[in-house]
C-alpha cells in the first residue's frame, strides 16, 4: 500500500536541529511519524587533545541556555579524574549555581515556550499565541516571569562572574567564595521568585482542570523513568544515586552514575543521527525510559523542601501513585522542580558552610578517568573523560538529556500525529500540536549554532507518487 509523507523540517545546513516526518497511508491516516535529530557528536571530537581542566570552560559553549549544567558536569568529571573531592562548601556553592540554572531555564520554558499554548490553546491564531500575546494579556505576570529568569541568571552571575559562560567550578572545588553581601543579595530575591512560580503553578493547574481531554489523549504512553535521587529517594538535581523505575513504578535499578555504562546502552536507527539510550538489561525497545522533570518526579518519592513537596503529593495523586505518563504534565513537573530550586536556594544560603573559604581541594590522586553526572534542566547529563598520564583528553563521551529523551520525543510525535491528524490537510493547529509534543520535553536542538535564515520550518504533504499536495512554511 502506498503512503504519503509529511515533513516538518527546520531547514538547516548543519547539525543541531531536527525535523519531523509524518507518513500517511492512502486512507489519509497516519502510518508512522518520526522525529529526526541531527546530533552534535562533533563536540566530543573537538575536545579530544585538550587538557581535562579546560573542559569546565569549553563545554558550556555547547549551549547558551544551560551552560552551567555542562560547566558543573565537566567539573565533577574532572574531580573524579584527578581524585580531588571538593570540600563541602564548594559543593554547596556549585549546587547554588545549579539552582540558578534550573530556575532560569525552567522559568523561561514555562512562560515563554509553553505558556502561550496553555493560555491561548493549541488552535489559537499564532499571531496572538505567543509570548507577546501573553504579555498583552497579563503584563504584570510577564514582567514577573522575566524577573524570575533574571533571578536565576543573577545567581549565576554572582558566583560565576558572568551570566552566560561562568568561570567558577574547577577540578577540586570552585575558585571564588561567596561574600556575605552577595548572600544577602540573592536571599532578597527568593520570596518573589517563589511567589512567581506559585502563580505559574496556579496557571497550569487551572489549565489542566479545563483541558483534561487533551491531556489524557496527548502523547500518553508508558515507559521507564530515570533520574538522580537523594539517599532517601527524594528529588535530587546536583548529586546522588541514579534511580531507574519501570512502567509500574517499581524500582529496576539504583546505581552510582560512575557505572552508567553497565546499565545504559544506545540503540541506532537509520532515520536519526541521535542515538536512543535504553536500559541494557531489558534491551531495546523494552528498556526505553524518560528523563527530565517528568522522569525525575516519577522516580522521586518526596522533595526535601516543604512547598514543592506539597505540590509533589498533588502531582503523585494524578495517577494514583503510579508514574504519571502524560507528556503535557512535563510542564507541571517543570514548575514543581522550579519551586524546589527556589526553595533550595534559601536552604543553601542558610547553611553555615556557604560563606566558608574552604572551597578548593588541592590534593590530587590522578586517575585519568572521570564521570560527572547531574540533572540538567532537561534531564540527566553525563560527562565521561579519559586522559593520558599528562591529563590530555583521549576520549570524551557526553550523554545529554535530549539524547535520553530521543525515543520519548519521537514516540510523542508519533502518538500526537496518529491522534490528531486524520486527513490529508494539516491545519496550523495540528502542526502546532506536533511541535508541542517535542517542545514539552524542552529539547536542546538549536543550541549548537543558529544563524539568520536557519530556522524556517517546512511541512510538505506528499502523495504516494511524490506530488506535493500541501506545503506549509513557518519562518523564524
Amino acid at each position, binding site marked *: 500500500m502506498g503512503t504519503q509523507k509529511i515533513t516538518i523540517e527546520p531547514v538547516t545546513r548543519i547539525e543541531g536541529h531536527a525535523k519531523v516526518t509524518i507518513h500517511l497511508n492512502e486512507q489519509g491516516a497516519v502510518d508512522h511519524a518520526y522525529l529526526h535529530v541531527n546530533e552534535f557528536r562533533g563536540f566530543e571530537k573537538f575536545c579530544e587533545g585538550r587538557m581535562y581542566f579546560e573542559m569546565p570552560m569549553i563545554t558550556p559553549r555547547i549551549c547558551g541556555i544551560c551552560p552551567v549544567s555542562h560547566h558543573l558536569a565537566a567539573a565533577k568529571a574532572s574531580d573524579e579524574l584527578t581524585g580531588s573531592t571538593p570540600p563541602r562548601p564548594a559543593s554547596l556553592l556549585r549546587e547554588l549555581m545549579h539552582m540558578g540554572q534550573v530556575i532560569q531555564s525552567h522559568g523561561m520554558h514555562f512562560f515563554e515556550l509553553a505558556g502561550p499554548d496553555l493560555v491561548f490553546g493549541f488552535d489559537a491564531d499564532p499571531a496572538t499565541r505567543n509570548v507577546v500575546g501573553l504579555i498583552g494579556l497579563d503584563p504584570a505576570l510577564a514582567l514577573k516571569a522575566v524577573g524570575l529568569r533574571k533571578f536565576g541568571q543573577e545567581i549565576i552571575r554572582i558566583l560565576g562572574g558572568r551570566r552566560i559562560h561562568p568561570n567558577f567550578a574547577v577540578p577540586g572545588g570552585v575558585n571564588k567564595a561567596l561574600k556575605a553581601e552577595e548572600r544577602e543579595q540573592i536571599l532578597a530575591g527568593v520570596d518573589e521568585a517563589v511567589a512567581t512560580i506559585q502563580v505559574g503553578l496556579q496557571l497550569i493547574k487551572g489549565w489542566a482542570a479545563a483541558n483534561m481531554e487533551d491531556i489524557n489523549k496527548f502523547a500518553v504512553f508508558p515507559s521507564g523513568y530515570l533520574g538522580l535521587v537523594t539517599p532517601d529517594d527524594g528529588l535530587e538535581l546536583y548529586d546522588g544515586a541514579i534511580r531507574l523505575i519501570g512502567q509500574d513504578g517499581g524500582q529496576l535499578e539504583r546505581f552510582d552514575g560512575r557505572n552508567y555504562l553497565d546499565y545504559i546502552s544506545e540503540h541506532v536507527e537509520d532515520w536519526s543521527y541521535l542515538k536512543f539510550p535504553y536500559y541494557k538489561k531489558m534491551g531495546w525497545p523494552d528498556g526505553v525510559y524518560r528523563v527530565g522533570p517528568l522522569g525525575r518526579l516519577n522516580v522521586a518519592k518526596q522533595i526535601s523542601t516543604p512547598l514543592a513537596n506539597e505540590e509533589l503529593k498533588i502531582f503523585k495523586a494524578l495517577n494514583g501513585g503510579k508514574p504519571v505518563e502524560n507528556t503535557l504534565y512535563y510542564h507541571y513537573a517543570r514548575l514543581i522542580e522550579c519551586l524546589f530550586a527556589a526553595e533550595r536556594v534559601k536552604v543553601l544560603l542558610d547553611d553555615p558552610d556557604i560563606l566558608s573559604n574552604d572551597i578548593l581541594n588541592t590534593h590530587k590522586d590522578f586517575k585519568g578517568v572521570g564521570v560527572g553526572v547531574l540533572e540538567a534542566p532537561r534531564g540527566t547529563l553525563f560527562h565521561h573523560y579519559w586522559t593520558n598520564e599528562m591529563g590530555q583528553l583521549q576520549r570524551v563521551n557526553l550523554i545529554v538529556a535530549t539524547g535520553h529523551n530521543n525515543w520519548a520525543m519521537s514516540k510523542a510525535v508519533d502518538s500526537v500525529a496518529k491522534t490528531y491528524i486524520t486527513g490529508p490537510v494539516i491545519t496550523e493547529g495540528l502542526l502546532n500540536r506536533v511541535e508541542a509534543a517535542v517542545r514539552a520535553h524542552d529539547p536542546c536542538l538549536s543550541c549548537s549554532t543558529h544563524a539568520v535564515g536557519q530556522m524556517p520550518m517546512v511541512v510538505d504533504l506528499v502523495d504516494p507518487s511524490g506530488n506535493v499536495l500541501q506545503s506549509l512554511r*513557518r519562518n523564524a
Partner: protein
Amino acid sequence: MGELNSFGDFDRSTGSKSPILILGYGNPDRQDDGVAWHILRQVAERYGRPVPAEIGEDFENDTSGLDFQFVLQLTPELAETAAGYARVCFVDAHTGAIPADVQCIPIQGEFQTSPFTHHMTPQTLLVLSETLYGHRPAAVLVSVRGYEFGFSYTLSEKTAGLANDAADWIYAWIKGPDLA
C-alpha cells in the same frame, strides 16, 4: 552636570538612554557561526577599546555611550538591556537563504516563533523591549554569510573577508545611521 559621551547628546548620570549597543551573537566554536565575535572585536579595536582575551569574557564598556556585548544566543532578559539604548546593532552570521554576502537592514519589532525550542530572533527581542519596557531602540541587523561551520575558532577565509566589510559598515553606522 554629568559626563557627556562621544556618541550623541547623552548624559549617563541622569539615567537617560545610552546611545548605542553593538550586540553580537553566535557560537565562536563553530567557525563562521561566531563571526559576530570577530566583528565586535574589530570594531572595538578601531575605537581603541580593550577586547576580551578569550571567548566568554565580557567586553569592557566605558562611559562613552558605545557598548559592546556578545552572547551565544539571544535570550529574553536582553530585552531589558536593549531597551536601555537609543540604537542597537545586532550582528550575526547568515546562510544561503539570504542573497547578499553582507546584509545590513533596519529591523522592526515582530514576533517570530520558534517551532521546537529556544531560539529568539532580534525582531522578537525588540517586541519584548517595547512591550515589557516601553522602549524599542532603532535597530539594524548586520549579518555575514557563513561558509564553514566546523568545530574551530578560525573563520573561513571568505567569511573573514566579509567580516572586515561588516566592521566597516558598523563603524560608519555608529557615526550616524545616515552615513552607513
